[in-house]
């Protein structure tokens, strides 16, 4: 298409150029022809005019010669009129009284009529020739003159032009004007010449006088009109200007309007007729000048169009022949693209590029089909594995205990975040008996299903091997041996286990190649737990393991973790590291285990933001709350310290149970104590403090004598004397019953004696109850 457009443009440019160039040449040719024709016609006109000028001039010369009579001249002039077909008439007109003293007018005139040559005297009162141009102008100008065309009424009675030659006589040394000799030419004399000029189909010549009077104009009937008037009737300034120049005797070639009866645009060539000052114009229509040329161009356009059309058809045919197999191939590829691998490729018989392309596509189709089949199978297999991995992950996570023990001696929390679906980390905690808690952490080298399985085995072995009946390092040794035995993949696990006696805080531990855990002390100092130098589990059967013991004090925190914490990478490829870990931990000594664990995990995540988690992150935190800090034991005195939190109520229940057993309280009394202490305690929790902070309160139990128990409850809250509070109204109907005051009512009713004192900033309530 672009090719065709280009071709078309080139043709068009050539075409336009040729047209402009050709029309210029054609116009120039037209001008030359018109000029030649004009000159030729002017020559023919001059051929008529020249003799008409020469003869009277000669006669006047003769007349001026002394001795030659006017009569003789008139006779000669008459002979010339008869001889010359162009000359219509001739007159010798005298000045007044020159011919004779009696004759004012004397102008003998010889002229041709249809019935022969006539003779008459022109001058009379009716024909006062002295004022006519043919007499007046030569007299005035002192030289021969061609008159403008005129109708000689009373003279020749015809349309004519007159050549007048003045004659003089020398009288007293002066040339004195005596009269004129004229030759009349009928304008019809030029008709033949002008009419014989034919230019193209309707072009013609015309002749105008010096003043523009039309001498001959074939196209326009109105003779004797002025050419300027005709030009003015048309609208073209060009035309008026051209006519103006024409009348000034110039020569030119212009395009004009309105000079022809048809008013069609035409070309005018004009040139002067030198002897008379007339002007000859040749005018021919523009259309006719170019008619052949336009015909030629029409044919050229048709030929050109036929050429372009045949090129177009040929191109389309060739292109279709070339592209049909390709577009079929494209269709087939689309179908393949949409997944129809059985789409038939078009059969192309010729052995060209297209058939090569088709073959290549066919090969690609087969390979693609095979590839996709394989991909589908692989994907199904992969999906299956992935879903199995997810299940494995769920199972693995299910193996880890998440119910943290609710023992007041310890606060425990653990978290494991896998890097992949299934990982190789593990943690565990369980009670060996009511006082011995076992905590463990491990990291299997490697990831994925094998690591997870190895981790599961390790955990199972841990649970089945650790007991109080053998020492910890022996148990670890057994676990190691079992792992070595069933370890075809040469896997291993770094492992750390500890057994804590919650009564004393003593911890026995054994490390099998794991990172050393930390102890966070109450003052914020972080200490490493010493190593026991054991190899990771699963490597050598005979490796010895040893265990050690340390004392964990009340409030100290044990932190176990895997290298997923310390070796977490950030985007700058830096490790989280031990320093950062220690730094973070040292501010967390007053937090709960849960808070510490989540804070650490969160910090690691924030550190490695933007970097994919490379390894499992496992953290286990155990705060040793101690056994003997909240209670003071003696035979007859027990003191318990509580925080102003509702869940501390448990401690009251425990301690009441304890003294009930120890001092043999009847169940009714212990229930009453429970009830009374709960009411007082909840009062303190709800009302004693407004600051929302934790506060301690003490309850002291004392057996003051046989069967008497005394309880002192001390808090540092707002002053509150329960004895001044009114108790409930028993007789009010149900609708008005309120629970407020019921607790205090119980206290007063159930205790034998209730005292209150304000001791500094402390409320002290003293209860006494007999129990036997």
């Amino acid at each position, binding site marked *: 298409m672009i090719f065709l457009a280009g071709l078309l443009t080139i043709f068009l440019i050539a075409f336009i150029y040729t047209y402009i160039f050709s029309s210029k040449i054609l116009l120039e040719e037209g001008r030359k022809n018109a000029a030649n024709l004009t000159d030729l016609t002017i020559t023919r006109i001059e051929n008529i005019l020249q003799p008409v000028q020469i003869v009277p001039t000669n006669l006047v010369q003769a007349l001026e010669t002394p001795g030659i009579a006017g009569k003789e001249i008139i006779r000669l002039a008459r002979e010339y009129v008869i001889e010359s077909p162009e000359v219509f008439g001739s007159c010798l007109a005298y000045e007044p009284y020159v011919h004779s003293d009696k004759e004012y007018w004397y102008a003998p005139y010889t002229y041709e009529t249809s019935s022969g040559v006539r003779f008459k005297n022109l001058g009379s009162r009716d024909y006062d020739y002295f004022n006519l141009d043919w007499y007046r102008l030569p007299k005035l100008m002192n030289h021969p003159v061609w008159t403008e065309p005129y109708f000689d009424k009373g003279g020749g009675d015809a349309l004519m032009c007159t050549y007048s030659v003045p004659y003089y006589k020398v009288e007293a040394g002066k040339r004195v004007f005596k009269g004129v000799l004229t030759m009349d030419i009928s304008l019809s004399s030029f008709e033949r010449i002008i009419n014989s000029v034919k230019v193209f189909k309707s072009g013609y010549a015309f002749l105008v006088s010096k003043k523009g009077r039309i001498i001959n104009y074939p196209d326009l009937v109105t003779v004797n009109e002025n050419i300027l008037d005709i030009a003015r009737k048309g609208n073209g300034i060009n035309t008026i200007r051209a006519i103006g120049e024409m009348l000034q005797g110039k020569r030119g070639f212009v395009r004009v309007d309105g000079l022809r009866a048809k008013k069609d645009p035409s070309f005018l060539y004009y040139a002067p007729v030198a002897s008379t000052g007339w002007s000859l114009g040749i005018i021919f229509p523009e259309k006719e000048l170019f008619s052949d040329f336009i015909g030629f161009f029409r044919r050229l356009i048709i030929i050109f169009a036929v050429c372009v059309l045949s090129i177009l058809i040929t191109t389309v045919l060739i292109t279709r022949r070339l592209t049909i197999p390709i577009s079929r191939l494209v269709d087939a590829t689309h179908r393949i693209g949409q997944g129809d691998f059985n789409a038939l490729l078009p059969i192309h018989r010729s052995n060209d590029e297209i058939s090569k392309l088709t073959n290549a596509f066919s090969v690609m189709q087969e390979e693609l089909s095979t590839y996709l089949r394989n991909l589908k199978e692989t994907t199904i297999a992969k999906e299956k594995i992935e879903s199995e991995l997810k299940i494995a992950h769920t199972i693995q996570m299910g193996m880890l205990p998440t119910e943290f023990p609710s023992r007041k001696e310890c606060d425990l929390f653990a978290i494991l975040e896998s890097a992949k679906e299934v990982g190789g980390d593990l943690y565990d905690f369980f009670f060996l008996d009511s006082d011995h808690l076992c905590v463990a952490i491990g990291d299997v080298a490697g990831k994925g299903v094998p690591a997870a399985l190895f981790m599961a085995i390790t955990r199972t072995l841990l649970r089945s091997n650790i007991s109080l009946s053998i020492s910890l390092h022996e148990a670890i040794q057994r676990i190691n041996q079992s792992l070595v035995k069933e370890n075809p993949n040469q896997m291993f696990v770094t492992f750390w286990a500890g057994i804590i006696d919650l009564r004393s805080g003593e911890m026995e531990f054994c490390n099998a190649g794991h990172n050393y855990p930390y102890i966070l002390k109450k003052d914020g100092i972080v200490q490493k737990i010493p190593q026991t130098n054991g190899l990771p589990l699963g490597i050598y059967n005979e490796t010895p393991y040893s265990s050690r013991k340390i004392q964990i004090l009340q409030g100290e925190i044990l932190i176990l973790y895997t290298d997923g914490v310390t070796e977490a990478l950030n985007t700058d490829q830096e490790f989280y590291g031990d320093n950062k870990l220690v730094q973070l931990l040292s501010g967390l000594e007053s937090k709960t285990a849960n808070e510490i664990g989540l804070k650490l995990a969160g910090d690691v995540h924030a550190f490695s933001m933007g970097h994919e988690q490379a390894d499992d992150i496992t953290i286990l935190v155990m705060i040793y709350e101690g056994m003997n800090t909240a209670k003071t034991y003696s035979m007859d005195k027990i003191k318990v310290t509580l925080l102003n939190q509702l869940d501390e109520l448990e401690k009251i229940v425990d301690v009441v149970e304890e003294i009930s057993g120890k001092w043999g309280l009847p169940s009714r009394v212990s229930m009453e104590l*429970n009830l009374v202490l709960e009411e007082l305690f909840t009062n303190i929790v709800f009302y004693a403090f407004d600051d929302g902070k934790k506060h301690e309160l003490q309850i002291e139990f004392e057996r003051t004598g046989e069967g008497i128990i005394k309880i002192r409850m001390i808090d540092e809250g707002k002053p509150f004397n329960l004895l001044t509070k009114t108790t409930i109204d028993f007789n009010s109907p149900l609708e008005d019953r309120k629970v407020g005051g019921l607790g205090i009512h119980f206290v007063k009713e*159930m205790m034998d004696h209730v005292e209150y004192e304000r001791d500094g900033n402390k409320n002290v309530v003293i209860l006494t109850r007999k129990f036997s």
Partner: protein
Amino acid sequence: MELIEQKTEKCVIVNITGRLDTTNYSLLEKKLTDLIENHEDKILVECSKMDYVSSSGLRILLMALKKVTMAKGKFVLCNLQDNIREIFEISGFSNIFEIYPSQEEALKVF
């Protein structure tokens, strides 16, 4: 504390086991409120296994009694342990609650 709810043709029996105190009264509150809001306004509280109640617990029972009475329903207790009965006596609640010594007797009132 453990709560067991049992629907019979006549009423809903709520069985309280264990201690009803400040730490867990809200469980009972929710249970009873749900029942009453679902127009179960015939409620029998079986107390044979309830071995402790504090004023917080009593408050819930009182609240339930008020709501059920307003709804023209019935809220009764049965099988109170001696200790509990004493608490009810001391608090004066024995005067405003209908308390029956056995479930059979209690069921007759519905």
